[in-house]
């Protein structure tokens, strides 16, 4: 991540949350397990977190996810909203060392994807189910299965969508030293 002005980060949080909302609310492909979707928004989240850092990642996910729940009116599932925020936070933390604006080669692809796998595993494999058990006293085997199904589908989605977005974005950015002085 490059150093960004704090105002840019807060604007990015706003626009990122709006993107997260639109993808999650209008482009979701439902899977048979309730609460879980094949959701493009996590690909976007990984990309934004890598670009704007952990605070942006956490808040984009938190605001975007809470707005989705509000708009559906099925109640706000805080356990899942918080899990999303944790995913965004870890995605931002893990990619601090790389800058996808400068280059997105093999090394960056590895860091980016290892981070997102870890983030999703912690968020959906640990945080969401544990909170579900604490808040709603749901049976453990049910919530862990839900979390695992959701987590794996999110990992696959992020691996494809997030990586492709980052590759395309970094290719579209002009590189330093790409201009040559004419003879």
């Amino acid at each position, binding site marked *: 991540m490059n150093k960004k002005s704090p105002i840019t980060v807060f604007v990015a949080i706003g626009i990122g949350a709006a993107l997260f909302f639109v993808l999650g609310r209008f482009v979701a492909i439902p899977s048979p397990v309730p609460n879980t979707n094949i959701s493009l928004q996590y690909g976007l989240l990984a990309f934004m977190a890598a670009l704007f850092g952990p605070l942006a990642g956490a808040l984009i996910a938190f605001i975007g996810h809470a707005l989705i729940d509000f708009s559906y009116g099925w109640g706000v599932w805080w356990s899942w909203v918080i899990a999303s925020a944790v995913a965004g936070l870890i995605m931002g933390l893990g990619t601090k060392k790389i800058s996808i604006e400068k280059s997105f080669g093999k090394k960056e692809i590895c860091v980016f994807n290892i981070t997102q796998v870890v983030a999703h595993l912690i968020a959906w494999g640990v945080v969401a189910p544990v909170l579900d058990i604490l808040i709603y006293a749901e049976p453990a085997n*049910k919530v862990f299965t839900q979390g695992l199904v959701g987590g794996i589908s999110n990992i696959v989605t992020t691996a494809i969508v997030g990586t492709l977005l980052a590759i395309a*974005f970094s290719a579209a950015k002009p590189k330093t030293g790409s201009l040559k002085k004419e003879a």
Partner: protein
Amino acid sequence: MSGIFNYINRESVIHRMSGATKLIVLILWSLAAMTSFDTRFLALLPILAFILFGLSKIRFSDVKFLLWFTFVFMVLNNLLIYIFSPEHGVTIYGSRTVILEGYGRWTLTAEQLFYHLNVVLKYLATIPVVILFVSTTDPSEFASSLSKIGINYKVAYSVSLALRYIPDIQREFHDIMISQQARGLEMASKKQNIIKRLKNASAMLFPLIISSMDRIEVIANAMELRGFGKHKKRSWYSERPFRAPDYTAIIFVCLLMAISLTLNFINGGRYFNPFIG
């Protein structure tokens, strides 16, 4: 924007309340309903919520669609709980009263039925308040409410930006989708496998990302030029002052929270257990 969030503008006590009050009520009410598993308390909350609905002049027909959605979701979730753990109630309440032996491990016990009743009540206790909040709070007042309950105004402003740009981004995404489809990119086609569909989806997302990055830069520059973030506090155009009904509502919801916590204490745990004879 009201199209997305189902805000219904009517003249009522609840509508006149400050958005901050409604947010506090929503948060404390949800917390109270989340911490307690006392059946009597969970049964009281929906009744109170229906009284609030009456006060807000929001009619059943206004939110019928939302309720229907919730109902389907609730049935599905209950079914899943039963399939995965048909004797969860037995472990929670520590006794086993079999009503029907059933098939294999899927027995029917009084404890399990009681547990499901609690799950249903939990839905009924929390969801009407969320619906009420969404349908009586103007989205443009939301950011000022967040800032009023003590959240950093920069974060509150991000929320307000998100609400402002959702319709724009939605329209843009729709345009991009149509033009990419015209070029032969399919996203929802059943004929393609999931990997191919995700790849196509990324190709549709990319133009949206590029234009959003431009948007971020333009907005950030405009805000920086106007000195955003210079002061510790800011004022909000759509802020409402607290009046008597606001204080009443806040005291009322604090009482609910206190009852919920006391019940946890009295019951010696979160559950109200009628099976101890």
